[in-house]
């Protein structure tokens, strides 16, 4: 444990020292992975599919604000969909516009979740997102996560039903449009996942703010269980075809990942909890103070030992001096 804490301190110090380089590098990585994933799922526009374009866009994102990365990713997705079919692009544009106009007007700090949620879906561990946002966000994060889920399912639906959409002839624009809208609005799985994630975020948020010992751990486990239960219940009710094994394994892996996050964000020593009471003119205070786990990192010290010139044994000089003394 001590070693891990030392490692954490060292990482912190490393980040503090090289923040100027690390932050853009991480932004670049996120943007690069997102664009690559978008290209892989719906890479219909060949002009955008080349590695050079992806690299240039990701480089651009590395020094632009995070929110612009989200906008740019939405733009790339729209361009691909436009190359595939105009109707898809119109529906996706409407979804993105509603999201940007209605929700991001409040300029929440967790806009990036909209990008991260689909990424975790592709990695098969989307259950990380609601628990993590419950731990480090606010209940309002539920809306950001919901936006991410909707984006993933809308684009996923379009890429899945590509073969069906191709069978519509050019005249059937309205039918095609109707088919897409029906598919998007009637997607029970999507609604179920949005509901499950929203409930999970709120449950996790309220439990982790309780003043009981190990509130974070309790919140994580309860959150994961609530998530699993709601998704299974939804599966029974609406036949959403959730893979039960994937759900359970994904949740277990998510909980483990979240524990790592907890180690970095909230690491306290409950055994040294102190309860204190005091008063001032207006209030009585009942304070529970839980100390953070910290260690002093061992500092590497380079000690230079200077040897005075006289003390060094020069065999030649010595021999000479001996000769002269003779």
């Amino acid at each position, binding site marked *: 444990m001590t070693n891990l804490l030392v490692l954490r301190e060292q990482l912190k110090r490393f980040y503090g020292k090289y923040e100027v380089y690390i932050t853009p590098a991480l932004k670049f990585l996120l943007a690069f992975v997102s664009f690559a994933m978008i290209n892989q799922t719906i890479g219909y526009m060949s002009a955008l599919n080349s590695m050079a374009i992806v690299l240039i866009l990701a480089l651009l994102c590395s020094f632009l604000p995070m929110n612009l990365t989200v906008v740019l990713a939405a733009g790339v997705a729209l361009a691909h969909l436009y190359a595939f079919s105009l109707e898809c692009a119109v529906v996706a544009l409407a979804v993105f*516009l*509603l999201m940007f106009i*209605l929700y991001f007007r*409040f300029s929440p700090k967790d806009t990036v979740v909209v990008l991260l949620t689909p990424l975790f879906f592709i990695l098969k561990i989307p259950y990380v997102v609601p628990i993590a946002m419950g731990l480090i966000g606010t209940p309002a994060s539920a809306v950001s996560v919901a936006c991410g889920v909707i984006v993933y399912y809308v684009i996923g639906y379009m890429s899945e039903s590509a073969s069906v959409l191709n069978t519509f002839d050019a005249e059937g624009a309205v039918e095609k449009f109707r088919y897409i809208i029906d598919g998007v609005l009637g997607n029970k799985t999507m609604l179920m996942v949005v509901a499950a994630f929203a409930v999970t975020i709120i449950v996790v948020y309220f439990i982790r703010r309780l003043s009981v010992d190990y509130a974070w751990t309790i919140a994580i486990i309860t959150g994961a269980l609530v998530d699993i239960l709601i998704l299974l219940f939804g599966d029974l009710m609406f036949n959403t075809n959730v893979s039960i094994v994937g759900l359970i394994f994904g949740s277990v892996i998510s909980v483990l990942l979240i524990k790592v996050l907890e180690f970095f964000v909230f690491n306290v020593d409950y055994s040294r909890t102190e309860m204190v009471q005091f008063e001032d003119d207006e209030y009585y205070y009942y304070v529970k103070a839980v100390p953070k786990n910290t260690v002093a990192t061992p500092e590497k010290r380079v000690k230079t030992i200077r040897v005075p010139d006289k003390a060094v044994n020069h065999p030649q000089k010595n021999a000479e001096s001996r000769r002269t003394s003779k």
Partner: protein
Amino acid sequence: MLNEERIKLMTKMASYEANEGKRNVAIGSYFRGDYISLQVIKSIISATIAFAICFALFVFYDFEVFMSDIYKMDLLSLGKNVLFSYVVFTAGYALLSYLVFTRRYSKAKRSLKMYYNNLKKLAYLYDKEGKK
């Protein structure tokens, strides 16, 4: 002589100005009513655009039915319905943004007050040093 207390205070204030302070100073330059009404007006405009998008999708979804029935249907009642849902939607959204921005304004004011207190403290520290 370097005054450690003053330098600490200045560093803290500079970091505040660079990060969260920037937004708060922008908010603080408005009167309360002005800021909130401006934000609510912006919200109403965005709600109008959003509603227009939804309505356009709705019309396009039932385009053929809509076109063939346009002479038969009761346009007045349809207009009433659309108007009613528009008003409900916009009012709901405006109310929500009123609540959010009211809270945001009072938060920004509070944090700015602390910042100005620090400024006063800084001036005081300078004064004290000048007298020495």
